[in-house]
């Protein structure tokens, strides 16, 4: 079985978000780029699956839609264990355009399990995974917190409101993964970094695809009023404030 993990390159979580040209563009000055944390969880799970011989995972490919600036994150994915990578050389303008590009690659290369993080920490769109599945007319399971191959069956667990469901799915399918799928992401070791340099990173040109949404500017979030501090000996006051001032209890 062949796994494709879709990864997106996002600003490091601690990045201070600033905009240029009257809030029309994201200011990338000094930004550290990382693998989107959910995509990293997907990759971690894919690696665990490949290490388990009973799951018969043949290869793990990572795919990203982005310019050459995304290559360091792709190399990191290779360094922690992906076998090869595809970079679709264009900006990920919107979810529809991005998903269309990845779907095209899946059609060419026949993957069985396509894994995507449930959202990206920059645009928080939660859309690419489901869109890839619909472009390919294959099943998708969202909010996946466990994924296993057992006796050639794909068994997944998805979180639902107030509980979870266990499902069996036919391949090919898209697993849109979230918290629980894997714990700690892996850190590349020196040997992995050396090996990653030799691993195939294929650069392909985009296909024609419409764009459905565009960004019409940003707004910054206004600063909060300072926190009202309450003496630990006067919890009655806190409860009164919550009841009468904030009116939330």
């Amino acid at each position, binding site marked *: 079985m062949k796994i494709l993990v879709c990864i997106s390159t996002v600003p490091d979580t601690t990045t201070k978000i600033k905009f240029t040209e009257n809030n029309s563009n994201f200011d990338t000055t000094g930004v550290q780029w990382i693998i989107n944390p959910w995509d990293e969880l997907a990759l971690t799970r894919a690696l665990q699956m490949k290490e388990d011989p009973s799951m018969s995972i043949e290869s793990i490919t990572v795919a990203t839609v982005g310019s050459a600036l995304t290559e360091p994150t792709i190399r990191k994915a290779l360094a922690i264990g992906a076998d090869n990578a595809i970079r679709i050389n264009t900006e990920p303008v919107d*979810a529809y355009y991005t998903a269309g590009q990845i779907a095209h690659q899946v059609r060419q290369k026949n993957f069985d399990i396509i894994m995507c993080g449930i959202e990206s920490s920059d645009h928080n769109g939660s859309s690419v995974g489901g869109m890839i599945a619909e472009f390919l007319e294959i099943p998708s399971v969202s909010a996946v917190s466990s994924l296993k191959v057992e006796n050639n069956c794909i068994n997944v667990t998805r979180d639902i409101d107030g*509980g979870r469901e266990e499902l069996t799915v036919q391949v090919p399918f898209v697993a849109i993964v979230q*918290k629980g799928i894997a714990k700690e992401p892996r850190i590349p070791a020196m040997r992995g970094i050396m090996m990653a340099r030799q691993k195939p990173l294929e650069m392909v040109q985009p296909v024609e695809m419409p764009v459905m949404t565009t960004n019409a500017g940003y707004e910054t979030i206004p600063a909060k009023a300072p926190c009202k501090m309450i003496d630990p000996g006067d*919890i009655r006051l806190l*409860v009164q404030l919550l009841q009468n001032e904030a009116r939330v209890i």
Partner: protein
Amino acid sequence: MSVLVFTENWDGKFKKLSFELVTYAADLAGLLGTTVTAVSLGKVEKDELQKLSVYGASRIIEIVDNALLTLDNQIYTNILGDTAEKEQASVLILSNNSTGKAIAPRLGVRLKAGIVSGVIGLPVSVDPFIVRKKVFSGKAIARMEIKSPLKILMLAQNSYELKKAERQAVIETLKSELPAGSAKTLVNKVEKQAGKIILTDAEIVVSGGRGMKSPSNWGPLEELAGVLGAALACSRPVSDEGWRPHEEHTGQTGKIIAPNLYMAFGISGAIQHLAGVSSSKVIVAINNDKNAPIFEAADYGVVGDAMKVIPELIKEIRTVKGQ
């Protein structure tokens, strides 16, 4: 040219988020000079369906089929997609909850429609069609323009005030034309805790971090949650250590919530945690470190030992609630 809203049900019942969606749809329909049609999939009693009209639905289409008892993303997409086409909807609205996230993107491709997820209010303009959403995990807001004729919006939970319109809606029951056995996903087992307050629905959330020191200290937090009718949450280290189940993890890679009141006990407030809770209307922080970053995000703060403050809180809240 109507506004179509998908109102999911939970064991035949709607909840607050369903009514938020319909209220939002009605206000949007007002801006566009059209009306709201709600679509309900699966068995719901007529008087429950009529509740949607109270918030502004003029028509309700219910589609009942055994295949709709579990969520197969392709089946839901096909049925909702067919309905949107038949109704010539101009806007399709879903919740930004797990079901919405599972099917809206598929609908976007099927209907060649632009999607904006996590929408936080009415459009700032309808021509061009521009809506606002939080981006960068809550650190900024983006204005998104949808260029396609049909627009799909996923409304953020607890982001729109309920408003009653007191209409009577026409209910149309449609038979689905699903071929038997068309689901490609097969649900083998469902585990559900009855009566549990769902974290993403909860109006009050009580949350514990590493400062709670041990999983055995959760008893008082559970009691406090019980007194407040709150859901329980936790920070990432607590869930990674296995002190609490991963469903309770609130923060960047966990649940993103927007309750009216979020109470953080022993949580330092790492930026990843704040990304999941910063949309809460009121944040209360209890932490023994006065320099903890959580106090920068909080509205009310107590520098103190959570284990001492919690019993006091339970006592005082019981008093004001007359329990």
